[in-house]
């Protein structure tokens, strides 16, 4: 079998999963058995741009150097780090967890016996970073936290009627502040009370209290169901779109015994929040949906949720979907890249990888929406959910505004202004058309066919003018296929 290659990796390793999960809890301090780079990237360089935080404060590297790699191993360095942290007071009231990294695993540094000689209760988490990806890692670390810090102390904890956990949000979860806000609102609407938002708004000491919820809502299909399964109570996934959200609220009401309240909430939402979708559907905007195509690359919840809402409910054409982790038939990044290079859909939901592929393709007529990591973005305002009823409104609003922008970019602007700036030469809007050979027309049609539907009218007129201007410049009596190809190349099409 040929070696497998990675193009623009979309998901990170078990080590990152562990850090981004554990470090959300203020009573944890992580010591990473890591070289400086694994510390900087996870704790500062990336969460600066995914979570908009200056850095993760409750994490310290053992800073592996050539000595440790060479022969010494990392035990002494981890011990030194632990002792100095303790002396500085940074560990007061903290649970210390030592985490392995790919490099420490590479040199075989299993510190499970070392931690027993550090302060009482210090744990070692083998992040399995040479084998485990972000999603398996995220699921396993949540289960491990429950096994280590929850289950042993949860014997007397019984589910309280009407209470719900939200499991999943951590650092590095795209758009989670808005989605969390919306899921919380849906739970309240269905008649539930929040027990814990785990781990994002919990402490490690809260972990046993996970057992106190009657229902567990798992935010993401890509991870978190493992913990919910161990807790044993009924589980629901956070919903996308109008139909699924309605089913979610209804089911939650049934589970909590608050069906009446849930139904009243659904009815109220149709009159208020969702009214925007109804109005856009009845208005001229809705007419565009059926001729607008969409490509989706995102975490599994987002990918499946957007495809169901935009495709099944609104009737948009779904050009492709690729979930993270990838499902068996999902295109990989190489295939996504080739598709975008060949012909980009009108809208692409994705990560910075897809944004780069669109740049490579010069696909200036496709519109990009950030919908996944990796990629720098601030999503701390809570008004931009993709999930739930408000998400259904927000996503459709973004799409319609995208259509408006696309249209705007194709409206003619008087070229005298670009002449002042020394811009491209003026196209003479000469009276009457030049005759086009059939082949020339076919070349133009083929190029236009690759454009999203909406800008085609304006683009075709613009290209026609450019080609004819070129023909007149060369005193041609007829437009030839070569001339069209030349003009298209100049226009970057």
């Amino acid at each position, binding site marked *: 079998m040929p070696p497998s290659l990675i193009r623009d990796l979309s998901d990170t390793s078990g080590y990152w999963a562990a850090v981004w999960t554990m470090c959300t809890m203020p009573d944890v301090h992580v010591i990473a058995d890591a070289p400086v780079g694994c510390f900087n990237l996870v704790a500062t360089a990336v969460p600066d741009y995914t979570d908009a935080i200056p850095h993760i404060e409750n994490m310290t590297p053992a800073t592996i150097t050539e000595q440790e790699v060479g022969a010494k191993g990392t035990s002494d360095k981890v011990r030194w780090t632990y002792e100095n942290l303790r002396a500085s007071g940074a560990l007061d009231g903290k649970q210390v967890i030592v985490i392995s990294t790919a490099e420490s695993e590479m040199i075989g540094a299993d510190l499970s016996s070392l931690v027993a000689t550090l302060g009482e209760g210090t744990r070692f988490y083998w992040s399995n970073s040479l084998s485990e990806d972000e999603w398996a890692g995220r699921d396993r670390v949540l289960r491990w936290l429950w096994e280590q810090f929850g289950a042993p102390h949860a014997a007397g904890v019984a589910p309280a009627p009407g209470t719900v956990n939200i499991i999943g949000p951590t650092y590095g979860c795209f758009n989670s502040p808005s989605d969390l806000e919306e899921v919380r609102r849906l739970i309240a609407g269905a008649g539930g009370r929040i027990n814990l938002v785990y781990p994002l708004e919990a402490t490690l000491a809260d972990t046993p209290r996970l057992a106190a919820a009657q229902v567990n809502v798992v935010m993401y299909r890509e991870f978190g169901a493992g913990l919910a399964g161990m807790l044993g109570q009924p589980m629901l996934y956070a919903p996308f779109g109008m139909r699924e959200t309605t089913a979610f609220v209804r089911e939650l009401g049934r589970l909590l015994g608050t069906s009446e309240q849930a139904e009243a909430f659904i009815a109220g939402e149709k009159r208020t929040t969702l009214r925007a979708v109804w109005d856009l559907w009845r208005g001229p905007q809705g007419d565009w949906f059926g001729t607008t195509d969409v490509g989706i690359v995102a975490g599994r919840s987002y990918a499946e949720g957007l495809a169901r809402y935009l495709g099944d409910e609104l009737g948009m054409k779904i050009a492709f979907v690729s979930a993270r982790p990838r499902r068996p038939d999902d295109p990989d990044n190489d295939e996504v890249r080739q598709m975008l290079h060949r012909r980009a859909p009108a809208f692409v939901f994705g990560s910075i990888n897809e944004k780069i592929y669109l740049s490579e393709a010069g696909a200036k007529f496709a519109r990009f929406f950030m919908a996944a990591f990796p990629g*720098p973005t601030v999503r701390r305002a809570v008004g931009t959910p993709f999930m739930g009823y408000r998400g259904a409104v927000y996503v459709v609003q973004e799409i319609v505004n995208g259509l408006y922008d696309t249209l705007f970019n194709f409206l003619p602007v008087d070229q005298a202004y670009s002449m002042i700036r020394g811009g491209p030469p003026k196209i003479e809007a000469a009276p009457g058309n030049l005759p086009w050979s059939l082949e020339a027309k076919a070349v133009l049609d083929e190029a236009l066919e690759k454009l999203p539907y909406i800008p085609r009218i304006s683009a075709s007129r613009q290209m026609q003018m450019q080609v004819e201007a070129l023909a007149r410049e060369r005193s041609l009596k007829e437009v030839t296929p070569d001339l069209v190809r030349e003009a298209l190349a100049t226009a970057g099409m």
Partner: protein
Amino acid sequence: MEPIALSAEQSQGHTCKLHPQSMCPAFGSLRILSRIEGSHPVMATDTGCLYGLTFVTHFYGARKSILAPTLGSAELYSGEIVEGTRAAIEAAAREPGCRLVPVVSLCVAETAGMPEELLPRQVGDAEVVLVRVPAYAIHSHPEAKDVALEALLRRLGDREGPREERTVVVVGEVFPADQLAIDAILRRMGVAATIALPGRSIDDLRRAGRAAALAPLHPFYKGVTRLYREWGASVAGGAPVGISGTYAWLKSIGALLDLDPALVDRVAQEERDKAQAVLAAKSLKGARVLVTGYEGTELAYARLLVEAGAEVPYVSTSIGVDPLSLPDELWLKTRGTQEVVYRKALEEDMAALDRYAPDFVLGTTPFAAAAKERGIPAMYFTNQLASRPFFLSSGMAATIGFVAETLERTNRYREMVAFFAE
């Protein structure tokens, strides 16, 4: 590969270096390798590393797709690392216009062993250049820029063609306008051409092998400097920073290239006059500034601020001690700087914040955040200073103006603290 010495290992003093401050060292190499036109990097590493480095490269480096072999435990332990890397090189070389495939070998690949002799040197039109940058041995991202540039020059530098006697290779990532200003002033002194590295062009790398002189503007280009000495080229120390630094640098270039002394002197004097006029127009007198980035260029910035009248009691950087940075360190220490810290940790910067109560901080993101929490104007050195001119009199004006303007906004920083404390 020779590891870079950890010259300031755990300090014996009171401050414990728990949180070292550098980007992932390898990022320095990726930044310059990804920005070269026709270059398609291959990264040999684990997925966590790949994710993080690709992320920052797509932020600070280039909009460029990055290939890697899958290196999990199966591949690493079974020695399939070369096979996978070769396949990735082949794929990268198929990219349109590919002329260079830098193979960036990182911690786990270096630990497992990446034998250079088993990698191709050339695939189609593309040169394949191995760049070894394990974070555990390089320690800071500026030093990884040097490692990458040295590897590129050793492979691509043209040593066959005729030597260009009055051409200077100016090394260091600088603001584009600085590059033009440096080129212009050197030409006025009689230099035939300058080549700015690291840059976008592979041809510049080739031609750089024929240049008669090297001017490393930053003090971490140790390997590149060593290479040019091997090649018998002259090396100009220092950099055109501030009044005295610029004057000395221009004179030294003139002497190295045997340019007309009267002409050199006239140009250097004119530039000195301009620099003095800049300082006369804007002074930072009375401001106490901590310069605590991790770019390896901190000493030069501190020097400029001191000339502009600021008090800079503390300077820290991610790079190790090296003779190349000693002149700036001595210059600073005779002008009031009390501490210059190499391979610094957050703890040392925090102690300095307590000790010196500065008016302005140029720091890493964690440290700048800590200063802002105290209502002290602070900026992320990397983002703010790299994005404006710095060298010669024109650069002085821009940099000093930036600091002065920030100081004028001090109240905003205080008000923000007060608001969030309420």
